[in-house]
């Protein structure tokens, strides 16, 4: 039996060598994406986002205000104009993400205590940029108001700590847990790169199995395995398991060792979860192949249609808890969702694994699930032919 397994593995390795596209997908794509995403977001949090300033008033007071605005971390005024229309057009051309507008008469109103109104426009079709700029501007708006009161109070002879107790009595100190700098790259790369690898695994699983039917070699494989379906499947998939596990570990090493992304549970533990995710994804691909036995194209179509959705349903950018209930259930059929929650619990937060055991079990279930449908595969080996 072991001999049969070994023969199938050797046969599979030879097949790799003949298909350059296969090697490209297996090696070049995941590593390329690793490089791409980590260099794309190396800034961590986008800074110096372009904004336009419309200063219709143009006095020394408004210039002081704009100088303060210019010191903010995320904002950079790339355009100064007197006309709002011009700025709005720049926004429509995509040159600026936000417009800060000081209307005519602001200084006059401020000096005569008539409550000037200053407006701030963000382009929320660019969500991340708009959120960041809005945060800056809110802070600035609040600060500018407070600064005016502070000056009055100083003139009345209050001490600075008294002043702060008056103008900003309650201070909110925010602690984003596990990622204090709100580094997007940390969580996003940690989701997307393994996610892409898992998608590739699902696709290649059904691809390499389906190829047997396509080439009309499925019976040959079955005979090599001595009529044991599981030997045939394991023999075919084992080389991929090893390869993908190595790639996953490489990703882990780059993330946690080279780039120093937070990893509270230690790299070996993440490698274990990486391995589990690799086999879970293979299980996912295998189940789909068993649902469409011998029909590689249907299995691959299903894999790709579902596989692309797993990124949305993993719940990083848009949380699963905010989705409608059916989608909350649906998210559970994707290995990536479980891997991501395990990652957050383990590496990002460093909690005990006991809090995510359902997700660990879920990953294991993906490995076990194909066993329930093995009979379909056996049937396919014996009776199904490739359909173009």
């Amino acid at each position, binding site marked *: 039996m072991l001999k049969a397994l070994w023969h199938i593995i050797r046969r599979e390795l030879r097949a790799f060598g003949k298909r350059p596209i296969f090697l490209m997908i297996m090696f070049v794509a995941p590593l390329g994406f690793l490089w791409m995403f980590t260099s*794309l977001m190396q800034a961590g949090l986008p800074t110096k986002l372009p904004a336009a300033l419309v200063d219709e008033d143009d006095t020394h007071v408004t210039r002081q205000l704009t100088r303060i605005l210019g010191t903010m971390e995320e904002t950079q005024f790339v355009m100064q104009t007197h006309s709002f229309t011009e700025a709005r057009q720049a926004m429509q051309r995509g040159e600026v993400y936000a417009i800060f507008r000081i209307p005519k008469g602001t200084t006059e109103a401020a000096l005569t205590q008539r409550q000037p109104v200053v407006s701030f426009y963000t382009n929320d079709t660019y969500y991340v940029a708009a959120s960041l700029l809005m945060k800056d501007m809110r802070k600035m708006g609040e600060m500018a108001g407070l600064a005016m009161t502070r000056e009055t109070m100083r003139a009345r002879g209050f001490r600075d700590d008294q002043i702060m107790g008056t103008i900003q009595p309650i201070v909110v100190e925010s602690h984003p847990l596990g990622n204090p700098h709100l580094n997007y790259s940390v969580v996003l790369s940690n989701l997307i790169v393994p996610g*892409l690898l898992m998608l590739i695994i699902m696709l290649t699983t059904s691809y390499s199995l389906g190829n047997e039917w396509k080439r009309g070699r499925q019976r040959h494989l079955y005979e090599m395995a001595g009529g044991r379906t599981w030997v045939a499947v394991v023999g075919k998939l084992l080389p991929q398991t090893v390869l993908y596990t190595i790639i996953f570990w490489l990703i882990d090493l780059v993330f946690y060792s080279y780039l120093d992304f937070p990893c509270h549970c230690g790299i070996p533990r993440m490698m274990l979860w990486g391995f589990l995710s690799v086999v879970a994804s293979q299980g996912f691909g295998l189940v789909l192949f068993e649902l469409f036995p011998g029909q590689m194209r249907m299995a691959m179509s299903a894999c790709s249609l579902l596989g692309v959705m797993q990124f949305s349903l993993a719940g990083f950018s848009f*949380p699963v808890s905010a989705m409608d209930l059916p989608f909350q259930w649906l998210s559970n059929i994707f290995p990536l969702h479980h891997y991501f929650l395990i990652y957050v619990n383990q590496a990002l937060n460093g909690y005990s694994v006991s809090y995510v055991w359902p997700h660990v079990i879920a990953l294991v279930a993906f490995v076990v699930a194909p066993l329930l449908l093995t009979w379909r595969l056996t049937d396919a080996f014996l009776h199904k032919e490739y359909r173009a």
Partner: protein
Amino acid sequence: MRKPKFPILHVWLDELSELVKDEGILIFVILLPLAYPLLYAMIYNTETQRELPICVVDDNMSARSRDFIRRVDATSEVSVAAHCTSMAEAQELLRRRDVYGILRIPREFDQRLWRGQQAVVGLYSDLTSMLYYKVEYLAVINVAQELNRNIKVMEHQQHTTAREESLARWPIRFDEVKMYNPAGGFAAFLIPPVLMLILQQALCLGVGMSMGRSRERFRGLVIPPTKHYKNTLAIVLGKALVHFLLFLLMAFYMAVCVTRWFGLPQLGHFWDLLGFFVPYLAACTFMAMFWSSFIYRREDCILLFVFMSIPLLFLSGVSWPGASIPPLWQAVASVFPSTWGLNAYVRIQGMGASLGDCRTEIIALWLLAGIYFLLTCFAYMFEIRRSVGRTILE
């Protein structure tokens, strides 16, 4: 079949009848562009996180701290799901994912405020999703600022008139306007670019599948060895037209039906949209045809094209701000029509920009369409030569 006079029509009819007969292709050119937009729109339909459960550790237990908590609970962003007596208890809830954040009110909160000192409130956010942090921070900071104004006006500075009081609250008034997406929602931001991405991906898959199919059928050739398939221009245009016209229909389905059904922004005028779709789809079609000429088996194109969608979304600069993308990746991104198309569509449909406002993108798309068209022609010329060679050999 009756033979039309023009080779281009012949090729067109051939390709169309092949397409209709092949369920594998139909999945990608009909089902995918029809169903996927609906699915995505439904996922993000709730737009934002509301009533996110958080827990509170109130070490102060005063009327003021309770007032603070009530106000936080009253916001639409979060809801106070639990009151804990200690941070340890709260952390346990956080680990169990019963709550997604902790609001901590310090022991001397009220006393410090009465003494005229600053009191620090702690907010601890789970980062499973960035949105958790955003909504919690917004909810708490809004409440804190509101209370700060009250404290300043009521307790520290005595004012005589309502006007004076309002002035003390807001020495300068700030107007925040979220343009083109007033609710700040996710669907309005993500769905429009995703629609355009689906178009490109479905085109690539559909064209790739049909190319792979020809190659399998005609022993490695993309074109059938018949006499109608001698004119490169006719073949390229005839084949391209099938997919182009079909996807033009799909594009309008997305820009009109999906957009209306899900209440997405629709500020684009018909002619602007058409003026954008034509170069975008042309560029996508020819790109798909060119890349597909490297595909020898129909399933290979699934392997090649499917996972490109996620990286392309990031490279486009819609999700991750384009201004923060390193030049190398901007260069890589510029090769794909989606990079230009996503931005142009978002601007035309989402912000009501005219074609002139997206001049750069439209020109780039026409350029890409031209370049890929030429490349496709070369690829097909090569194929025709091979096919001629083979017919002679036979």
